């Protein structure tokens, strides 16, 4: 089924290469959680979202909020690949005077809807956006990408109560369920399961998908239009996906590859 989206495969591969490239050049950054969200981000920016890189503030655009702000390399790669800014900017990630701050800053980088980095906050912001669009009868949709470790934040569950209460059917949350956070496995650090049941109990439509399958991502995201309930898509993913030695290793949450590791990673992503 995924073969219908073959153009997305090649984009996703370029996104992964850019993620590795910019973190290597910066000497720091977060590869693991950037790589796990590549298919979700690629499907959003190149298939699902209505957006216009020529006119980043177009009021008719759908909104994408990266609540897991540490996956900035993923967002920057997606924005650059979409045409929001020149490729040269990627070489300056995390550098002095760069528009590409270590975590996304909306006042510095076009296409970044709001600054994120302190976990849990992007989700509430998305709720506010979705409320206002519903109030104004705008057709736009609001998408959020959250990490699973991020769900430890109490604010997430405040927002999880808010969205169904105000019937925000225009809100879709992707959870990048890679099962790893800095201190280890999410179930050992602070158990999230039964995760789908939690969201159902809060009044959400819940889907569980393979977060590396374009067809599953796109089918899930398209399905909710005209619902009165917000949708959460729990996307099972692999942290560090695409680079063999980074996969499923929490050590690659926030670390830059060495020269040798960089070369191997780029070879694997040919």
């Amino acid at each position, binding site marked *: 089924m995924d073969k219908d989206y073959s153009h997305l495969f090649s984009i996703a591969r370029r996104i992964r290469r850019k993620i590795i490239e910019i973190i290597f050049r910066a000497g720091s950054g977060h590869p693991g959680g950037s790589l796990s969200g590549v298919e979700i981000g690629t499907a959003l920016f190149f298939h699902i979202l209505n957006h216009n890189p020529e006119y980043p503030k177009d009021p008719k655009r759908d909104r994408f909020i990266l609540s897991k702000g540490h996956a900035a390399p993923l967002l920057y790669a997606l924005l650059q690949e979409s045409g929001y800014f020149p490729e040269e900017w990627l070489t300056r990630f995390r550098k002095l005077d760069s528009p590409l701050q270590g975590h996304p800053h909306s006042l510095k980088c076009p296409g970044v809807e709001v600054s994120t*980095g302190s976990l849990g906050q992007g989700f509430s912001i*998305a709720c506010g956006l979705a409320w206002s669009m519903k109030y104004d009868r705008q057709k736009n949709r609001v998408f959020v990408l959250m990490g699973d470790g991020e769900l430890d934040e109490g604010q997430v569950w405040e927002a999880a109560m*808010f969205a169904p209460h105000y019937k925000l059917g225009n809100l879709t949350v992707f959870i990048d369920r890679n099962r790893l956070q800095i201190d280890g496995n999410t179930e050992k650090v602070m158990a999230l399961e039964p995760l789908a049941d939690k969201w159902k109990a809060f009044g959400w439509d819940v889907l569980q998908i393979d977060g590396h399958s374009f067809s599953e991502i796109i089918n899930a995201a398209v399905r909710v239009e005209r619902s009165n309930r917000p949708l959460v898509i729990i996307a099972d993913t692999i942290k560090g996906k695409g680079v063999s030695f980074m996969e499923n290793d929490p050590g690659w949450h926030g670390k830059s590859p060495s020269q040798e590791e960089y070369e191997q990673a780029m070879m694997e992503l040919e």
Partner: protein
Amino acid sequence: MKVPFKKGEVLPVRDGYGRALIELGASNPQVVVLDADLATSTRSNWFAEKFPQRFIDTGIAEQNMVGVAAGLSLNRKIPFVTTYGVFVTGRAFDQIRNTVCYSNLNVKIVGSHGGLSVGPDGGSHQALEDIALMNSLPNMQIFCPVDANEAWQMTLQAAEIRGPVYIRLAREATEVITESDYVFQPGRVKSLLRGEDGYILFHSVIGSEIMKASELLAEQGLNLTVINCSTIKPLDRTVLDEIGVTGKPIFIIEEHLLNGGLTSIVATHYALHKPTKLYTISIDDRFGESGSPGELYDRYGFSAEKIARCIHKTLR
């Protein structure tokens, strides 16, 4: 704009806020008001009754409330976030810092029940550090109304300012001391009384006690210039420089911790530009406690009698 309340009237500053919200609701369709289950205390319920579709109760969830307001502001709305000052500036500090101020979003944060005025509820509910917290944030502006008229004006003006604003309200009914032609200007302080024997700088509703204290001092032959520093950020550095060079004693009186309040802010300005001796009546490194607002004012030196006695003792 003509102020709605008469000089000498006694009412809580939050009434001025509530009234301004109703006017904003009628004049500006982008204004949305949020509260965290304290709408009847903060007066945001006045807006909720008139404009229920534009009122959002987030339940007792201050962090989410600030985040939701941030999202509203990203779609042209002008959100007013209201709850007790101690909760919004404390519990939601990171949301105000990392979401609202860092992105310079057009969110108005209104902390009611500032200072000791929440009285019997005790130290857990008395915001004595809210200004210190908000003053630490780039892009934030801080207004502290002396009475309901000023609260009304600040609220209307905050809706016109693009960017974050913090307004500090109080619970107790206090006397309206601004004149009918009073106009609030951000960054510009106003003198309420003029005298030659020194200066009193203050913010918030302690102003009505200071006016009474000034009468007591006048009976003893002491006349001080009383300046309402209701715009804490931006600070009126011009006036500070003008009064600093006179060499006359300067008293700073505030229902707030010494650490990080107006006293600290003014002291920092003088220390960096022209060292000037200051005197303060503020709260030194301690929490509040239960008691009636009157009892607490007396305990912490904020009653008119205590203020007058302190200034008299210092000057004589």
